[in-house]
C-alpha cells in the first residue's frame, strides 16, 4: 500500500511539469501584447511599457520565460507577481478558501441529495417518487448552469429574500445558492447512476439470500445493496470534485465570489501567465490528489481490491 502511494506521488511530478508547460504555452501563444492591453486605449509611454516587459521577462523566448518562472518556483518558492506587483501566492491564499468552501458545499449537496434521491427512486422503483425524482433530475441536468443561477438568484435572492444574491459577505449562507448551482448537474447524474446500480444490486442473488434469511429491509439496502453500488458513484464523485474547479469559473462570476475560478478567467483574458500557471498547477495537483484518494477508497469499499 505504502509503496503504491509513493509510486503514485512520484507520478505527480511529470504530470505537473507537462500541465504547466502546456498552460504556459497556451497563454503565451494568445495573440496580442498584454502590456499594451494593460492600459487600454490610453497607451503608456514606450519607456514604461519597455520597463514592464523587461520586469516580467516578456521579451524572452518562450522556453526561457517558462524556465525562469519554474526556477523561481522551485528554488525560492516564488510564484511570481501580477503585472501590478501583487504576489500570486497572495491571490491564491485569498481565493483558495472561497473556492474550496464552494466546492465542499456543492459536493455535500450532490452527494447527499443525489444519494437520497437515487436510493428512494431505486427502492420505490416505478412509483410516483421514482417518476418525480427522474423528471426533476432531467430538468436539473438539462437546464444551463447560467439559467439555474439566474432563476435561483431571482426567486430566493430577490423575491423571497432568503439568501444573499451575491458575494460572500454573509458567511456560509452565501455559499448555499452557488453551491446548489454548481452541484445541479452532478446531483442528477449521481442519482441516476445510483438508482440503476442499486436496482441491479437489489435483484442479485446475495440480496435475495439476505432477504430470505429475514434481514431487515433497511439493512439489506444499506449493507448489501448500497455498498456494492457505490464504486462507480464514488469514482464519479471524485472526478467531479476535481472538475468543479472548472464549473467554479461560471458560478463564481455570476455570484461574484472572490475565488480562484473567477480569478483564473480574468487572468487568462489579461494574459497574466504567472497567475494562470499558479492557479492551474494548483488545480492539477488537486485533481491528481483526489484521484489518488478515490483509488484508495476502492480498497475500503471492496476488500477484493488490493494495491501492491
Amino acid at each position, binding site marked *: 500500500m505504502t509503496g503504491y502511494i509513493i509510486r503514485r506521488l512520484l507520478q505527480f511530478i511529470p504530470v505537473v511539469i507537462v500541465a504547466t508547460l502546456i498552460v504556459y504555452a497556451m497563454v503565451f501563444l494568445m*495573440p496580442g501584447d498584454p502590456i499594451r492591453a494593460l492600459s487600454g486605449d490610453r497607451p503608456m509611454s514606450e519607456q514604461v511599457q519597455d520597463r514592464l516587459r523587461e*520586469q516580467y521577462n516578456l521579451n524572452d523566448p518562450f522556453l526561457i520565460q517558462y524556465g525562469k518562472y519554474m526556477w523561481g518556483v522551485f528554488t525560492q518558492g516564488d510564484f511570481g507577481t501580477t503585472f501590478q506587483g501583487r504576489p500570486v501566492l497572495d491571490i491564491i491564499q485569498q481565493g483558495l478558501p472561497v473556492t474550496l468552501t464552494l466546492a465542499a458545499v456543492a459536493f455535500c449537496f450532490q452527494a447527499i441529495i443525489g444519494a437520497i434521491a437515487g436510493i428512494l427512486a431505486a427502492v420505490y422503483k416505478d412509483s410516483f417518487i421514482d417518476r418525480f425524482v427522474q423528471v426533476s433530475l432531467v430538468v436539473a441536468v438539462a437546464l444551463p448552469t447560467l439559467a439555474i443561477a439566474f432563476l435561483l438568484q431571482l426567486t430566493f435572492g*430577490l423575491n423571497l429574500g432568503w439568501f444573499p444574491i*451575491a458575494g460572500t459577505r454573509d458567511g456560509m449562507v452565501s455559499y448555499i445558492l452557488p453551491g446548489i448551482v454548481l452541484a445541479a448537474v452532478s446531483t442528477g447524474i449521481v442519482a441516476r447512476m445510483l438508482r440503476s446500480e442499486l436496482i441491479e444490486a437489489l435483484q442479485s442473488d446475495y440480496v435475495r439470500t439476505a432477504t430470505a434469511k429475514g434481514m431487515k429491509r433497511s439493512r439489506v439496502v444499506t449493507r448489501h445493496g448500497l455498498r456494492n453500488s457505490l464504486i462507480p458513484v464514488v469514482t464519479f464523485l471524485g472526478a467531479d470534485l476535481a472538475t468543479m474547479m472548472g464549473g467554479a469559473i461560471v458560478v463564481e462570476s455570476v455570484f461574484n465570489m472572490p475565488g480562484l475560478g473567477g480569478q483564473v478567467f480574468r487572468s487568462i483574458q489579461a494574459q497574466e501567465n504567472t497567475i494562470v500557471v499558479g492557479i492551474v498547477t494548483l488545480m492539477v495537483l488537486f485533481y491528481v490528489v483526489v484521484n489518488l484518494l478515490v483509488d484508495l477508497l476502492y480498497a475500503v469499499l471492496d476488500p477484493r481490491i488490493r494495491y501492491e
Partner: protein
Amino acid sequence: MALVLSACGNGAEEGAADTQPADGGGVISTYTCEPQNLQPGNNTENCGSRVLQQLFTGLTEVDYDTYEAQPAMAVDWHTEDQVQWTFELSEEYTFHNGDPVTAQSFVDTWNWVVDPDNAQATANFHDKFLGYEDVVNGDAEEMEGVRAVDDYTLEIELVEPFGQLPIVLTYNGFYPMPEVAFEDMDAFQRSPIGNGRYQMDGEWVHDSEINMDRYEDWPGENPGEPERIEWRIYNDIETAYLDVQAGELDILGEVPPSRIGQIEDDFGDNYSQNESSRFVYIGLPTYQQEWEDVNVRRALSMAMDREEINEQIFQGAMTPAYGILPPILPMSRNDACEYCEFDPEQAAELYEEAGGPTEFTVYTDIGTGHDEYVEAIANQWISHLPVEDITFQSLEFAQYLDLHDSREVTGPYRLGWLLAYPSAQYAMEPLYSTGAASNNAEYSSEDFDDAIAEANSADAEEADELYQAAEDHLLEDLPVLPLFFQDYFIVHTDRVDNVYSDLSSYVRVEDVRVLED
C-alpha cells in the same frame, strides 16, 4: 495676466445644506470593479480611479457645474505666459497619517511617478513639464521644471505654453503621495494614505470591498456627505444590478445595456440617465490608400443615420454625436459638423465620384454590444452607398490594439475615448495631432496641429474658441466619424438621494445624501 478662478459652488451641494441628513451623513455602498492598482500615479482605469478620487485631493479639482478647474489644495495660481506657473498651496492639508502636505510632497511624487524605474502608467501625463524627457531617458533624477520655492509655493515650468494646466492637474496622476509610499509601494496600496475627503478603513480586500470613512480633518470647503463609503467590487454588472434591486447595494453607476429597457419598471424614480464624455467613433485608417480621400470619409459619415441607430439599437440611451467635443463640455456645439447630417443621396454621389471601395472590412473589438451597432452602420452603408460587400473582423482587445499599432487595419474600425480630465485639449490632441500616441487613424494635418498649439497656449478664457477652431479642421477632414457619446444609467435604492455621475461616468459619491438609516 493673472488667472484666478473662483470656486463655483456645486448646485447640488448647496441644496444639500438645508436637508442635512442625520447621524453625520450615514453609510452608502456603491459599485466598482476590481481596480488594477490603487497607486494614483499608476492608475488609468475606471475601477481604481473613482476610488482614488475620494482618497486624494490634487492641486485643483473639477467644478462639476462648469467643468473648469477650481481651487483644491492650491488656493490660488498665477501665470504670465502659460509657461511659468506658480501655485499657492493651502497650509491646512494633511495626509491621513498626520504628515503635512507641502509643495515638496508634489515635487517628490511627480519625480517618482516619472522615474522610468517605477514604470508608472500616468508618467506621460507629465510630459509637458520641463525636464520630463531628461528623467525618462535617465539623464536626470528630477524634473527641472517642478520646484518647491518654499513649503507652500510650487513652481511649475513647462516646455511650451499650456493654458490647460490647472484642469490637467485635477487628474489622479498628479495626486500627492506621502513619504511612506515611496518606501514600500506594495504595502502602501493595500491601504493608501492620501489627503482626500475619505480615508481607508482597513485594507483593500481584493475582489470584495474597499471601505473608507470621512476624514474629519479634511480642510476643504465641501467635505463628503456620507460618513462612510463602502465600495463593493463586482466582476459582473448584472449581479450588481440584482443586488441594488434587493437593497443589498445602494448605487450602481453602470446599468448593463440589456437592462435599460426595464429600468423604469424595476426602479421607478430611482434611476437617472447621465451624459458622459465617452466618445464612440468609427475611425478610418488614413494610412491606407482607399481612405486617403477626404470625400470618401465624408460620404461614409453622411450615409450614417445616427438617430436611427440610437433609436433602433440603444432605445434612445445614447447621445448621437455631431462633433468631436463631448456635449457635456461647455464649448461643444451640435451644429458644427456639416458632413454629419444624414444625407444618403449626396453621400452616394460623393462616394461614387471619389471612387470609394465597393468592398472592405470593418473592425471591432469583442465586447458587449459593439458588434451590433457596427453591423447596423455597415448595413446603412450598403443600402445608401455604392458598396457591395462588407466583411467583419472581431478581435480580442489586446490583439485589436496590436493590429492598430502595427498599422495593419484596412478598413473602418470602432474605438472609444474617455476624458481623463474635462478639457477640449484632451478630447483632441492625444487622438489627432501628428504622431500622437492614440492617433490610430494616423491623421496628420499641419493646420490642425497649429490650431491645437495655438489653443493650448491661450489662457482658459480665450481657449474655448480656439479649440472649436481646431475641432472645425477635424470635422472638415473627418479622420474619425463621430458616432455617439455614451450615456450612463444609474440605479439606486430608496435610502439615497442626489445621485449623479460626472463626465467620466463616475458617480459623485461624496455628494450622495442618505435619507434614512
